[in-house]
């Protein structure tokens, strides 16, 4: 293990050594030094630790606890046991939103990873560094806008009557697509907008992974007569499969929490066509003031995220190649 590649876990020698007697027989001085070092360590993690404890770990436990209560934040909370969880199954709004979220998230991740990979492979083919730099910059640009800003200008562009997208479609002879005003149109538009913005993320990941491929392996394959397709399928894809896997995991976690685009562009509509699970949590807790029920739905979302990530890790054991 060299200094260049950071080890996965800290090796035992890290930290101020406590002397050769460590673990065998300690002198009082060594013990004092050890205790002082531990105190120093706790002090150093104190700030970040307190913040994470107070604003993440505490709230996750509180949310779990709250999910067993009925509470509107004004009147005293009332213990209801598992009623909140039982209600979820019969609540058409929640069940439907899980379906909407699944369709959106699955489409977004699939497209985001496929297009990002495709573009990264194409850019990797370019020989001139300046050409690569131009495309890298252009594909990254959408990430420099906030999702709120993107949702705003995309709403104008996809407006059925005045939007620039339908303007050009009409020039081509179409009668105009109800992008945000029909069920299917709204889903397609939100997927497009999310993918448009997030492709830059997967693209950058894959470009970095491809650039890091061992040169000698690629040259050996070329000398052995491997064509572009064969070297892609047999060598490049297996070698970058850990990065593809990482992109899928992160992408799915993000896409399952899609909120901004749906909230700003369609308000979850038309009807409930784009009401995601995060929008239901928002409406339940902060509009209807059902804090207990909202907590229960948010716990189900959390559980779904853990299950999906776990499933991906299980699948990855077969598909991902770790050299």
């Amino acid at each position, binding site marked *: 293990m060299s200094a260049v590649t950071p080890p996965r876990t800290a090796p035992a020698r890290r930290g101020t050594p406590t002397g050769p007697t460590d673990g065998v027989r300690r002198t009082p001085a060594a013990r004092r030094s050890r205790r002082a070092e531990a105190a120093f360590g706790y002090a150093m993690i104190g*700030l970040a630790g307190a913040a994470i404890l107070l604003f993440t770990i505490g709230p996750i436990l509180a949310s779990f606890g709250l999910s067993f209560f009925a509470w509107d934040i004004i009147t005293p909370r009332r213990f209801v046991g598992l009623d909140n969880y039982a209600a979820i199954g019969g609540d058409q709004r929640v069940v439907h939103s899980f379906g909407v979220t699944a369709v959106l998230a699955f489409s977004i991740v699939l497209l985001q990873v496929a297009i990002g990979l495709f573009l990264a492979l194409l850019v990797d083919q370019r020989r001139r560094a300046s050409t690569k730099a131009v495309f890298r910059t252009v594909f990254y640009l959408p990430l420099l806008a906030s999702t709120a800003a993107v949702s705003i200008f995309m709403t104008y562009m996809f407006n059925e009557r005045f939007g620039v997208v339908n303007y050009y479609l009409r020039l081509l002879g179409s009668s105009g697509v109800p992008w945000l005003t029909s069920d299917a149109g709204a889903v397609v538009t939100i997927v497009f907008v999310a993918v448009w913005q997030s492709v830059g993320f997967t693209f950058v990941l894959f470009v970095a992974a491809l650039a890091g491929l061992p040169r000698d392996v690629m040259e050996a394959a070329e000398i052995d007569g491997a064509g572009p397709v064969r070297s892609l399928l047999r060598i490049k894809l297996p070698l970058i499969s850990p990065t593809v896997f990482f992109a899928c995991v992160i992408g799915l976690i993000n896409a399952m929490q899609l909120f901004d685009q749906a909230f700003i562009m369609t308000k979850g509509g038309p009807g409930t066509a784009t009401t995601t699970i995060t929008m239901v949590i928002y409406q339940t807790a902060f509009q209807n003031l059902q804090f207990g029920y909202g907590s229960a739905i948010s716990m189900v979302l959390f559980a779904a995220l853990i299950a999906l990530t776990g499933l991906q890790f299980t699948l990855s054991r077969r598909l991902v190649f770790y050299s």
Partner: protein
Amino acid sequence: MTAPSFSRSSLFERSSLTRRIGRGAGLVVLVLAATVAFGPLLWTLTTSLREPAESFTNPPVWLPLEPDFSNYAAVFGEVSLGRFFLNSVIVTGLIVGAQIITCTLSGYAFAMVRFPGRGAIFALFLATMMVPVQTTIIPVFVLISRMGLSDSLASLILPAIGSAFGTFLMRQYFLQMPVELGEAARVDGASRFQVFRLIYAPMATPAMATLAILAFTGFWAEFYRPLIFLQSQENFTLPLGLVTLQGTFGTGSISVVLAGVILSMIPSVILFVVAQRRFVEGITAGSFR
């Protein structure tokens, strides 16, 4: 290349015609994709430079030969965009500053200091990265109200001063540093904090820059927490403020809203131009281990 007879380029010269056609087609696809990626941004920019009255008429003006800057004036005059901007600068600036401090301290401790429970506590830190904001938002909202911070910029800043991912990022960086430097300084009488402050922290500035970029992009664009925590318009941050503008202005003067959108992107674009490498590092930091 010292071996001309078997150099890379000679192999490329023999590449077949099909291969060249493939590369040409690849370029065409790339240009098309770049058009799709850049088109909406260009439309936003050029439309923000059109006169408000005609900003929604098609065809769009892709090349603003006679740019009209009245929208940008309106955004600062009639509209309180300047206030939103200032709020965003305060919130994002303080969070970035706080995270650099807390994460450098904790990342160093997890990498270089030995204390009981270090592995377990670090694992707990990492586990919190999985928690979606939706699952903690209700208790945090209640907590913020009880602290008397409802509808304030502090309600956005305080819960964000620590970061598990930032701690992870800094720890990875400190792990690459030689322990011998600190040991030598300790022998020479430096305190533990002096070793951190004077020797290791200065070496970690590249990682701090990456962390700063990550935190900036995340919180500058944040919409969800401001939407829930803030009520009065004078406290709104940019993304929330822009969405409010869009709602109140309707279809009449979209060019004003789009001018706001362009202005909101300027700090990100400047940072990107100055520190492009750090953006890439921020994205890839989690993937290679």
